[in-house]
């Protein structure tokens, strides 16, 4: 009962936070408990009977985690999982406190955690995950982490903690090398795509360094065909058809990662048919906001009004999605937005609105890559919509209220349907 006092304090803080702001204050109990009982987070995460599973990588970890959790639950396993947040330690501790008894334990079989590679590498030394699944090392995000080698190093630190199995993408040369270095210590499961699938994907797979050879079908979980939102995967030599939450070979690869990881976790109990059905049933993935169809292409609108909604809404924006970000004259002085961490956006294709330069300045200091700054919002919108459709994710327009009104007026959208945020 070492952590009982800290847990009681955490519960009181949560109650106080909710009295002050109903439904809010979610990270505060975690902040407090991490301060007074710094060992609690690792203790709780290491105490699941069925073990801890960590999913990390540059891209696709959020979808892979959702798919894996669905597959495990379909096998009757009770799973603890984390909402993806910017500050993983505080958010995780707060989420654990929601379910912990006084000894700090959670009455669930397995914990499945999605970890940002940076945060993951920081807390990994204290964790003993049974399974670590690594999706990829992508060039997309190098502006956050300087270079792919740095990302690979962070993922290696996480993989190094695995006690049972490491699941890696066989098409990613960084991950294959990482796996080979750990060869005598843990088991390996691999997933990947066939030569045919690779040849048909116009923009490639996006790995910082692609493996020279494709995975043979007998050696793991393989994506053998992708057609819109339908994919065919080979598991243990048997073909399965699966419904993807969105179009694209990336989502099929996420499904392959989830299947391989579920197999590593469940062992003999793994049933590929059950897992595929569960993955196919998860709802389409969109960020927070409204999806609008403009001339046949879907575009997501995300509204930012104050620092809290700003942070919450951009944290759910798909890093891989093309983005237009506009702040208008409704924001007199954008200083108060600076406490918002915008780094999760990764990149913004066009920065616009009457406060474009000030927004670009904040994004630059958060290491967000900026395509261009276009003061004229109408022109920015036209150029953004005219760009080719993305290989992954949906074009996303993030705006303040004023820029939202101007965008809707420019596109001839009715003003009475307000953005749900």
């Amino acid at each position: 009962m070492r952590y009982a006092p800290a847990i009681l304090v955490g519960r009181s803080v949560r109650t106080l936070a909710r009295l002050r702001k109903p439904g809010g204050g979610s990270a505060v109990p975690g902040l407090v408990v991490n301060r007074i009982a710094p060992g609690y987070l690792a203790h709780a995460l290491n105490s699941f009977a069925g073990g801890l599973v960590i999913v990390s990588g540059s891209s696709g970890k959020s979808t892979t985690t959702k798919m894996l959790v669905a597959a495990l639950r379909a096998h009757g396993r009770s799973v603890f999982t984390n909402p993806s947040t910017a500050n993983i330690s505080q958010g995780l501790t707060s989420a654990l406190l929601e379910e912990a008894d006084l000894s700090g334990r959670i009455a669930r079989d397995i914990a499945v955690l999605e970890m940002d590679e940076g945060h993951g590498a920081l807390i990994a030394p204290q964790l003993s995950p049974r399974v670590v699944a690594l999706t990829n090392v992508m060039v997309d995000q190098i502006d956050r982490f300087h270079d792919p080698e740095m990302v690979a190093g962070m993922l290696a630190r996480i993989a190094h903690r695995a006690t049972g199995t490491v699941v890696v993408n066989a098409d990613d040369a960084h991950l294959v090398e990482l796996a080979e270095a750990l060869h005598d210590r843990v088991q390996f499961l691999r997933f990947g795509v066939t030569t045919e699938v690779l040849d048909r994907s116009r923009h490639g797979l996006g790995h910082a360094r692609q493996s020279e050879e494709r995975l043979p079908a007998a050696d793991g979980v393989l994506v053998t065909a992708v057609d819109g939102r339908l994919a065919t995967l080979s598991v243990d030599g048997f073909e399965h058809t699966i419904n993807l939450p969105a179009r694209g070979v990336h989502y099929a690869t996420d499904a392959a990662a989830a299947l391989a990881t579920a197999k590593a976790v469940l062992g003999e109990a793994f049933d590929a048919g059950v897992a595929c059905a569960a993955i196919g049933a998860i709802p389409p993935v969109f960020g927070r906001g409204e999806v609008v169809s403009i001339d046949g292409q879907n575009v997501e609108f995300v509204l930012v009004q104050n620092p809290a909604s700003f942070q919450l809404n951009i944290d759910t924006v798909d890093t891989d999605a093309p983005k237009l970000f506009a702040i208008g004259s409704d924001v007199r002085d954008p200083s108060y937005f600076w406490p918002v961490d915008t780094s999760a956006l990764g990149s913004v294709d066009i920065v616009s609105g009457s406060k474009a330069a000030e927004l670009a300045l904040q994004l630059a200091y958060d290491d967000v890559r900026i395509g261009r700054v276009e003061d004229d919002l109408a022109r920015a919108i036209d150029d953004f919509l005219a760009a080719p459709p993305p290989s992954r994710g949906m074009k996303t327009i993030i705006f303040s209220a004023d820029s939202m009104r101007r965008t809707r007026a420019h596109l001839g959208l009715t003003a009475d349907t307000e953005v749900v945020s």
Partner: protein
Amino acid sequence: MTVSITVAVIAPSLLNTNGDAENAQVLARRARWGGAEAVVVPVEHPDDLPPDPDAIVIGSGSDADLEAARDLLLAIHDELRVAATRGVPILAVGTGLELLSWGIEHDDNTVTEGLGLVAGRAVANTARVSDDIVVASPRFGRLVGFENHARAYVGAEGSPLGRVAYGVGNGRDSSQEGVVMGEVIGTHLHGPLLAKNPAMADHLLASMFTRLGAGYVAGERAVEADKHAARARAAILERLGQTAD
């Protein structure tokens, strides 16, 4: 040898209403872009204060948190004084400046004692000021920012940060803004003033690097960010009818 920079930011949970505490991140980023290692250490408790910080940032908060912020500052009073004497840059914004002064005189005639680290005191003003501000500073060139404060500041006439070209600044018809003592800078320019005024940021960084026996050169990415700063400044100056940079 790589230069290693530690920026302490005091009570960001209380003193970051306008994003002023983010100036610590601005210094750390620019230091990294200039090839150094840099960390920002939030100081919410006296024990959090790193032993020999290379810069200290104190942001602005609401009056409800004045006492709590002052008590934390009092607990690290000696360390702040030693840092100031050693030439460690200390940037104090709004309430942060007021708390480093002799004290704050409230409307109800009560006084919040300050640390007395810089000359001057905060006194009642006729109305809250909330508008753009442009300051001509002999040391940092033209400063562009936003001010948002309820009180005036008197007693800094001997060493102000600069002369007000647009806005109010210290008020009471002084036409002056802020206070400077060595590398201690107090100002009403809130928010990310170091990002919008990179000349000031680089002055502080040069002084930090020099203390560590190294030279500072702005990195490529700082030069890129400064282009956004130049455009933001140009838009504000044009709106205010001021001459361009």
